[in-house]
């Protein structure tokens, strides 16, 4: 049991006892950390405001047997706009929920941490319709489940010999007409997903909201849910009824 320092993003928190909270953090060096933040629900708490979900903080923690204890927390990066809009806040929470599912306790998660911080920064500075979807697609790739997009994931046939018209993450990605199953895939959505995973992320993030971005977002949620075998509640709440 000892003191340690790390950076982290608060993924979520639970009320504990009268005035405490358990915060779930994503840190680069220690992966997912569950820690008790004592007295943070009291108005005079020095660190309560810094440990709200989505906060990016510098931490001093005391390692415990089951739960660590937050000793100090300093804001590493203030999000100026993220918390002022319900949609942006919900999008941030959707990414935090997914990150919590992927991160493991005690396993360093540098790449995931960097990806989440960059995604939150993008959401704060220039929010577009594909920030959450892009994060989900990148998360799939990071977790070793990046989809096959250049050819049919089932039979291997490539365009222009075949058209890729469907998408099923369980099959490995895009599918041709003969092998189609899962969700329908439009050519425009196929191109957008290829941009996100093929090095043109900035270009994809500039795309304005349309039926294609909604399709890409839906495919990302469905695929990540299938991969995690878990329902993503916050992402589903964002989808139009």
């Amino acid at each position, binding site marked *: 049991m000892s003191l340690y320092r790390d950076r982290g993003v608060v993924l*979520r928190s639970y009320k504990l*006892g*009268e005035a405490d909270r358990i915060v779930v953090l994503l840190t680069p060096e220690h992966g997912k950390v569950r820690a008790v933040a004592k007295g943070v629900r009291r*108005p*005079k708490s*020095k*660190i*309560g*405001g*810094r440990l*709200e*979900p*989505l*906060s990016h903080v510098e931490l001093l923690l005391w390692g415990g047997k089951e739960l660590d204890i937050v000793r100090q927390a300093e*804001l590493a990066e*203030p999000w100026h706009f993220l*918390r002022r*809009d*319900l949609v942006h*806040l*919900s999008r941030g*929470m959707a990414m*935090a*929920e997914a990150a919590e599912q992927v991160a493991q306790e005690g396993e360093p998660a540098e790449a995931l941490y960097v990806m989440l911080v960059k995604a939150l920064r993008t959401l704060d500075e220039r929010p577009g319709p594909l920030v959450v979807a892009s994060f989900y697609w990148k998360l799939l790739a990071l977790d070793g489940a990046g989809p096959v997009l250049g050819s049919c994931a089932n039979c291997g046939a490539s365009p222009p010999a075949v058209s890729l018209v469907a998408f099923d993450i369980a099959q490995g990605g895009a599918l041709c007409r003969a092998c189609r199953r899962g969700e329908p895939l439009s050519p425009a959505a196929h191109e957008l997903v290829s941009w996100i995973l093929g090095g043109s992320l900035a270009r994809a993030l500039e795309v304005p909201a349309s039926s294609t971005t909604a399709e890409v977002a839906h495919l990302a949620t469905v695929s990540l849910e299938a991969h995690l075998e878990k329902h993503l*509640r*916050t992402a*589903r*709440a964002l989808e139009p009824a």
Partner: protein
Amino acid sequence: MYATPVQELIDELGRLPGIGPKSAQRIAFHILKSPAEDAARLANAVNAAKTRVTWCRRCFNFAETDPSADDGTGVECDICSNPRRDPSVLCVVEEPRHVVAIEKSGWFKGRYHVLMGALSPIDGIFAEQLRIKELLARIEAEGVSEVILCTDPDQEGSATAMYLVREFKHLPVKLKVTKVAVGLPVGSELEFADELTLTMALEDRREVS
């Protein structure tokens, strides 16, 4: 290990929020060592609270049941049934205990509406599970002219307030919507305030001259 009634008491106490096995054991022993009338008073108080307390049909605060006043549509709490409270101003809170906290300040003279929670999709709490539909219905029916949003200044409370502001815009009535200020606690020192609180305190600053 213990006689069955003792173990049952420990088990029941252990199911209460914030009470662990050790605390449950300590409270059970305290009850067993107390005079019989003290234990009976506790049992009666629990029983009376459970049978005589219900939700106010108007604001969803706690209300005492009164069979003589109940016409089948439920009862009203002391605040809603008080003719001296201003019905044109509604203070929206998350939980009944927040009503108590505001009442202690003695400043607010309007009525309340208790949402029975705050939005938290990650925990499976959506708008449909809260008393939002009932709040929207009250505004026009009761001629409410101002709503004060007094949700917790945390992520769930802020999301709930933002959601309500969006919903109020669809109402066909002119409504003043205000939100309690977020800022520095009285008696604290500026240097210990966190950046988020300080930012919000500066944003919510007001003209003094």
